[in-house]
Each structure stands twice: as C-alpha cells, then as structure tokens.
C-alpha cells in the first residue's frame, strides 16, 4: 500500500508552472529520489510534501490521511536541509531534543533518546558541541538525528550532501542509506547529483520542467533511459544521430549500423542511437560485437580505473571507456576498430515520444 501519495499535484507561480500534475506514490519503507537539474520542480515537490508550500491543485496523503492543507508542524515529517539548519545557540544534544521538547517529552527520557540518536549517527561523543564546532558532515548527521527524533512517518532530505566535500559526500550517503534501510522509514530524497540518486535509491524519478520524465529502479534508469533527456542527464552516453532506412536499417552518416531492424520506427524517422561508453569496445576485443566501425583515435585520456578514448568514425565521434588495466592504450592518430553489442544500444525517436 502506498504510504505517501501525491495525486495530480500542480503548483504554479503566476505564469510559471513549477509542478505540472505530478503523481507519485511511495511504498512504506521505500526511498525514492527526485533527480533533475535546478528549476525542474524537485524542491517544490518536497516543500509541498513538507507543508512549506501549498499546491495549486491536487492532493497529498500520508498513510492514507489527506494532509494537503495541514500545517508543516502537524504533519510529523522529519526534514533534513541543505546546510546551516542546526540551531546555532544549542548544542548537538539540545538540537536533537528540540522536537521532543516541543512535544512535551520529560527531560530524562528526552535526554536518553537524543543521546541514543546521536550514537546512531556516530556522534555520541559530540553531544555537547555547538554547531560551529562541528564539521559540515557532522552537522548533517546531527540534522539527521534531529529529524529522526520525532519518529516521523516520512523523512524528507533536501540535497543533504550538496554542501559537503566529495569524500564526505560518498561516506555520508552510504550511511544515510544504511540507516534508512535499517529503520525502514519512507524517504523522499531530492538531489541534482545523478550518482548520488543512483546509489541510495530504491527508485529514481527523473524530473524536467515540472514533470516526471521517468521513474524506476536505478539500473533501469541508467540502462533503459526512456528519453534522450534522461539518457544524457544520467552518466555519459554516446548519441549517434541516425535515420531509419527503407528496409528498417539504421543509417548514421554514410554508414549503416548493424542493428536489428527497429520495430517501432518507420522508414525516414530521425532517431538517435544511445550507447554507454563502457559498453563500447576498441581494438582486438571488438571481435564478436554486432556493430563494428573503423575508427581513428582522437584522444586517449587516463581517468584511473578506466581510460576514455575518443574516436572519429563514419557514424560520428564515439567515446569508449576501456579498462586501464588491460594495457595497450590506443594512441591518438591510430586506426582501430570500434564496436558495441546491439543489445546494449537503445534507439529513441527524435520525432515523437518513444515506447
């Protein structure tokens, strides 16, 4: 059963449509990310769920109860903000206690609960420190403990890691996911960072211009993007502009790609063939691949685990990420075959909505 349900939620500001009839439901214990560029409406959706904003149309239910017009203080949602949300004149302990104090929980019980929550986020030792004595990552942990203290039905996270360093970000995102899974709390996570969304979520909703462009498990969003926008927003992808030939073949530039005849397309359609760089092979390992092109290496960039090779082919430039460990990095100027498995490619129409 849906624990949280947004039904046809619209929010307009004058002529600007921030949310355009969004419908979204979260199962109990599920973590769903709203992912998209700034201005896509993801934060508006979260704020409407928290009660800080009111929808122009549509309803929101939490655990079956309509909360569309309920004040934020009565919704029982725990919220973690981007940064600087800790009360600066209170210690970590008092910050976590705040929600319990509002609810009239007696001092000894409140102290104990706050202490337990700080232990849970690994900050049992820092209870008496003030926010300015904590690092950014520690502050966000305290903010998480504070949000969990009121035992919310729903946890809302508004880009909780965006103000942190790359290393802390990775560490804390894994911890948030671990905590969320073990507590089984229904969570909505807003972010503009695609790697973050893929790594913490049960499902990812990619948003654009106030609408949900695609929603599904991370692997599906990454592997089977429904639209060119989703494909390019998530990770790096090759985009080969092509035409459907008379016999259903896919023609890119002056070459025909050995892809199975497309069922959903009619001859003359403009399509793009999408292939992830890590599924493209170069050199000797191309043998056995369905699609095969002759290419000239433009650049070869060492990225650590992988080396990114940029190649000029008759079908346009193609990027391949090959393992660095294999040895024999192709040198710029070299002529080399490049190929990919048709099963790893996706064909989307440019002329009309796909699938």
């Amino acid at each position, binding site marked *: 059963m849906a624990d949280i349900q947004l039904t046809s939620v619209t929010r307009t500001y004058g002529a600007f449509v921030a949310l355009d009839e969004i419908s979204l439901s979260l199962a109990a214990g599920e973590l769903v990310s709203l992912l998209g560029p700034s201005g896509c409406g993801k934060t508006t959706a979260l704020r409407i769920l928290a009660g800080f904003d009111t929808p122009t149309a549509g309803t929101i239910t939490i655990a079956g109860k309509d909360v569309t017009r309920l004040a934020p203080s009565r919704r029982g949602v725990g919220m973690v903000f981007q940064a600087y949300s800790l009360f600066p004149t209170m210690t970590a302990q008092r910050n976590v206690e*705040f929600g319990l104090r509002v609810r009239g929980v007696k001092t000894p019980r409140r102290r104990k609960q706050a202490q337990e929550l700080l232990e849970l986020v690994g900050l049992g030792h820092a209870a008496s420190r003030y926010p300015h004595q904590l690092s*950014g990552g520690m*502050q966000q942990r305290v903010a998480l403990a504070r949000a969990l203290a009121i035992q919310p039905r729903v946890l809302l996270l508004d880009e909780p890691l965006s103000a942190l360093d790359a290393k802390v970000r990775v560490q804390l995102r894994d911890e948030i996911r671990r905590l969320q899974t073990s507590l089984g709390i229904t969570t909505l996570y807003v972010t503009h960072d695609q790697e973050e969304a893929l790594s913490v979520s049960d499902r990812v909703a990619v948003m654009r211009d106030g609408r949900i462009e695609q929603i599904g498990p991370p692997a599906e969003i990454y592997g089977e993007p429904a639209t060119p926008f989703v494909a390019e927003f998530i990770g790096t992808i090759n985009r080969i502009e092509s035409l459907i030939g008379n016999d259903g073949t896919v023609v890119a530039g002056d070459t025909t790609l050995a892809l199975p005849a497309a069922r959903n397309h009619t001859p003359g359609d403009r399509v793009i063939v999408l292939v992830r760089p890590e599924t493209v092979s170069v050199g000797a390992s191309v043998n056995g691949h369905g699609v095969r092109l002759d290419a000239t290496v433009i650049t070869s960039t060492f990225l650590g685990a992988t080396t990114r090779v940029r190649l000029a082919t008759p079908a346009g430039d193609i990027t391949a990420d090959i393992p660095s460990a294999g040895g024999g990095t192709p040198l710029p100027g070299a002529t080399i075959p490049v190929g990919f498995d048709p099963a790893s490619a996706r064909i989307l129409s440019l002329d009309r909505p796909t699938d």
Partner: protein
Amino acid sequence: MTRRVSPSSLTVLIAGGVFFFLPLAATLEFSLRAEHGHNFAAYGDLFSDPQFWSTLKLSLRLAGETAIAVLALLVPTAYWVHLRAPKLRPLVTFLCVLPFVVPPIVLVVGLLSVFRNVSWFLSTPQFLVPAYVILALPYVWFALDAGLRAIDVRTLAEAAESLGAGPFRTLFQVILPGLRSAILAAGLLTVAIVLGEFTMASLSLFNTFPVYVSYVGQTKATGASALTIVSIGLLWAAMLALTFASRGPRRKGAA
C-alpha cells in the same frame, strides 16, 4: 599564501595610534592643568555639579526609551522581512537609510516648524524620542539585518516548524538567542547616538547631556577637557561591555 605583516604595516599602526591618541593625550593633559602643576580639580568640580548628573540622567532615560522603541519597531519587522518577504529587504533598507541622508538639522527644523502650534508636545523632552528613533533607524537596521543574514532565518524557522514548533516558540527559542549580540549592538549604538546628539536637543531647548557638554565647553576650559575624557571613557566602557556580551556561541563552523 600566508603573506605576513611587513615592517611597513607597523608604520600604519603607529601612524594610526598617533592620529587618534595624540589629541586624546593632549586633552587629558589639559584637563589636569591647574594654576601650578597638574591635579584632578576639574574632575572634582565636574562630579560635584548637579547639572552634570541631572543632564546625564535625562539623556540616559531618553536613550533607554529610544532604544526600546526602535528595537520594538525593527526586530519584528526585520524578522518578518527576512522570513517572509526577502524581496522587500532593499525597500526597507532604503526607508531606514533615508534619515541618514536627511541631516538632523533639517529634521528638527522641519519637525519644529510643523509642531510649532502643538506646544504641549514640544514642552516634554519625550518630543525628542521619535526624532531619535528616526536617527537610530539606519544603524539599528544594519545591525539587525547583518545579524539575521548570518543565521539563515528561513531554514532555521522551517526546521523548527517541521519539528512541531509554533511561530512564537520559533522566534523566542530559535531566532532571538542567535540575535543576542546584534540586538545588544543595536541597543548600544542607539544609546551612543542619543548621548551624542546635540543639534536637536539644543534647538528644541532641552538641557540634555550633550547640551551641558557644550555649555561647559563654552565657559570652563579645563572642565570641558575633563568632560571630554569622561564622555569618551563612558562610551568606550559601553563598547567593551558590548564586545564581551557578544562573546556567545558563534555560528558558521567548517563546511
């Protein structure tokens, strides 16, 4: 990256010291002059003058009333503007800065000529309080505005709200404690302004402390110097008090 203080910085430091403390030292020396050598006679005379105490008391009372009035007016306004209407901030800033560019002399002449026929109001020193409130507006606004900008009011208020707090609890338990030093600074600035305001008081014929200072200045040479030293001492004591009072927990740790 760490560039250190060069010897030439020392020059600035010393120049600054000379620039400010030489006149002060000269004044101090002058205030201690007696017919033969130096003594504290001028200070004795000053403290035994009942006018010194009565004008100081009047000015302090006006200062207190002005501070309360201006804070009562601006604290809720500033909070509300930051929380709900950040777009109005430039407008409110403009309104609060207006009195700064209207010189006090113009203000008092205007007020006096308008209220010329309302003599009961002109005859009580509280007539000055609204004028002083206007004078203090820019300083108090800037202090509160800076204080509020340092604490991300909106996020704090929303965090408190999501935890179940109502608007009053949010204001008194979350926002105001963080503004303690800004409010103190605003209050002390107001007191400093009122204690130093001569133009309006003198033109409206009230015997406030600055008016007394100018009277002494025109009649007793060493007395004036002594008074200068005492006034500066009072003000700097207030500033020190402020510095210590604002040593509460500070905000914005490592990111």
